[in-house]
């Protein structure tokens, strides 16, 4: 009896405390201001070999910016594993950086939260206008018909990296241009005891990037025109099956890669264990692992045999990093200045060289520094045959759901289970049902 009364008292206390402290409900994210014009906080994504490398690349540039404008930029390089969570919590709390890097595929998802400053004509005017950026990069900055949620910073595209020595040993004279050629070459390479192609089977984003391109090559889409998930249409199923079959049927991807999620396939390639790698802007990465640029060649990612063929058929996603401004920044003018600085021709050249990416800014792209054979392939791909991932609010859930489905299919292959059209379809069906109902 006594304890019941005491429990009631406790419950009341709790609810009172709740009312007092929490019923403010989230945060009152008002608009931004210019209350603190002298400082900015900047979250950079981890682009270089390590966080320390990023700091070394970025800090001198930030110092330059401070000298020019008197604004001190506090830099934090956020590891990829944390970045999305940190952005989410910053969004929820309204306590975040002023300027931040986002993976460009997240643009539409983050746009939907309303936390990012929309880049309307007025804001674009502050940084020199929308026309400064190439179209492919702008295509991955938010949902169609809405003001972009971010500005392109670094562009990247997938390419086929191949080990020249292994190719020569296997008697292959030129890199494969179609998947059929790749599979045929793979047999020759396997015969020499090397593994043909690498993949990151447990990395959800990598899986998504690849099956997206395969779907495009099959003429399929993961989302209908009005933005509904449509993962089980025959073309998408075929596309996913073709990718998984590279391991299951064609045996060009070793089963061990099914558990890779931390770029082990890049080190396999750098160590000369594996002949080919499908990767975005891997040069700097390979160099830091001791593989010199003359040891490998770069070619466009293979396409399907027949028409439309190489050069026109989609063979990469538009990969890259966008720069966004938090709406409730206390230094909106400074943030705009910083974005202008980071997207200026001079900085674009320095930063994109350091990260072996391609500048999304037209004038910077023409610089001689980006005319190396490697960059030529990437530039060409971006200009002609790269497509942006679906710019829908559910993109982030799509990556998780379908990426996990592909991961599980790879795990099935690794366990020796058969992968059939039916099993692929079932996996995608399940993924689709996990998407938010519309």
């Amino acid at each position, binding site marked *: 009896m006594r304890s019941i009364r005491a429990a009631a008292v406790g419950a009341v*206390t*709790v*609810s009172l*405390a*709740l009312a007092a*402290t*929490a*019923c*403010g*409900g*989230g*945060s*009152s*994210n008002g608009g931004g201001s210019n209350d603190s014009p002298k400082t900015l906080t900047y979250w950079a994504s981890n682009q270089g070999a390590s966080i320390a490398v990023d700091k070394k690349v970025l800090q001198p540039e930030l110092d330059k910016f401070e000298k020019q404008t008197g604004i001190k930029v506090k830099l934090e390089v956020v590891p990829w*594993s944390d970045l999305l*969570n940190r952005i*989410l919590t910053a*969004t*929820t709390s*309204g306590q975040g950086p002023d300027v931040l890097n986002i993976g460009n595929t997240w643009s539409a*998802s983050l746009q*939907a*939260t*309303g*936390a990012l400053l929309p880049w309307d004509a007025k804001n674009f005017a502050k940084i020199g206008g929308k026309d400064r950026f190439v179209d492919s990069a702008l295509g991955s900055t938010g949902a169609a018909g809405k003001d972009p949620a971010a500005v392109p910073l670094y562009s990247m595209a997938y390419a086929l990296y191949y080990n020249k020595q292994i190719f020569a040993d296997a008697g292959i004279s030129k890199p494969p241009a179609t998947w059929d050629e790749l599979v045929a070459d793979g047999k020759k390479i396997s015969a020499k005891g090397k593994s043909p192609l690498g993949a990151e*089977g*447990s990395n*959800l984003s990598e899986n998504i990037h690849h099956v997206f391109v395969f779907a495009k090559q099959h003429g399929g889409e993961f989302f209908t025109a009005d933005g509904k998930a449509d993962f089980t249409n025959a073309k998408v199923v075929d596309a996913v099956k073709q990718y998984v079959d590279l391991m299951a049927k064609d045996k060009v991807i070793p*089963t*061990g890669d*099914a*558990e890779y*999620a931390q770029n082990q396939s890049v080190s396999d390639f750098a160590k000369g264990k594996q002949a080919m790698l499908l990767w975005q802007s891997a040069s700097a990465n390979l160099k830091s692992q001791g593989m010199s640029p003359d040891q490998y060649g770069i070619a466009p990612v293979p396409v399907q045999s027949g028409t439309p063929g190489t050069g026109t058929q989609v063979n990469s996603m538009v990969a890259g990093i966008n720069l966004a401004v938090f709406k409730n920044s206390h230094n909106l003018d400074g943030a705009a200045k910083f974005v202008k600085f980071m997207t200026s021709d001079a900085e674009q050249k320095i930063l994109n060289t350091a990260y072996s990416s391609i500048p999304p800014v037209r004038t910077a792209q023409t610089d001689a520094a980006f005319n190396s054979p490697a960059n030529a392939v990437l530039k060409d791909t971006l200009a002609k045959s790269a497509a942006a991932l679906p710019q829908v*609010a559910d993109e*982030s*859930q799509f990556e*998780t*759901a379908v*990426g*996990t489905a592909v*991961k*599980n299919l*790879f*795990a*099935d292959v*690794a*366990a020796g289970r058969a992968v059939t059209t039916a099993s692929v379809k079932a996996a995608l069906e*399940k993924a689709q*049902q*996990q998407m*938010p109902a519309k």
Partner: protein
Amino acid sequence: MTTTTLKEPLRGSPAGAATREPRRRTGRIRRAGLPYLLLLPALILELLVHLVPMVIGIVMSFKELTQFYIRDWGTAPWTGLGNYKVSVDFDAPVGEALLHSFFVTVAFTLLSVGLCWLIGTAAAIYMQDTFTGRGLLRALFLVPYALPVYAAVITWVFMFQHDNGLVNHVLHDQLHLTDKPSFWLIGDNSFYALLTVSVWKGWPFAFLIVMAGLQNIPGELYEAAALDGAGMWQQIRRITLPSLRPVNQVLLLVLFLWTFNDFNTPYVLFGKSAPEAADLISVHIYQASFVTWNFGTGSAMSVLLLLFLLVVTGVYLALTSRGRRTGDV
């Protein structure tokens, strides 16, 4: 728990009060308020960090808290029981996945707690008598428990790798037990990988507690049993194990709750998306909230989990304390 067996506590002290006649009144008031004052810091902190957030979490579970509303969750629409309906609709994928995850967690927890207890108890009993190297061995056995979770689990990740890991090296290359190297971090084997790590990390706690429990068993009991002609094994069965019962009651409950709610081990072992065979509920809920950005459904799942644990704990305590009372008589 021990709170139920507390002795009637000290009620002030008449002697002390008598000697200080003039301050008697204030003394009584202070004494009446003192326990509350002593509890206050703990109470405030528990309210702040556990209870209030829990209530907020319950509130959230009734809201549609998707990416469109997280910026100002006060404005998120109420969904009534919507999130709960989605979570327990076991015919639809979300509910089905939650149920699957729940069963995996139950199986994992029972096995892990059972093995931890078994190994811990056996080791404690075997090491009751002094022998050479006992101190060293005891220190060694406590190392897995003392290691920070991250350091311990990441070592196991290294060992469980398919191509380069120690486990496959031993099982496949050296002992030739398998036809080909197995996958431990993806697919069905991931359950056993998780179990192994969990037991490796958890059994020393059971060892520690049982070791302490053994020291409370009066030596006379053994002597009496020995006089009756009971051998070593019989003594263990008739005296040691029954005497450990109260200790085990608490130990098993604590292990159960810790293992059931364990997030760190699966998260470090598998990352953000755990294989289906090892999809523990805490990681599942984490994924439901953080990776798919649906904090309402995530909260509803957490509340369901909490209710389940409340029921289990309540039933367990009711059963064991009744057993204990009759045992005491």
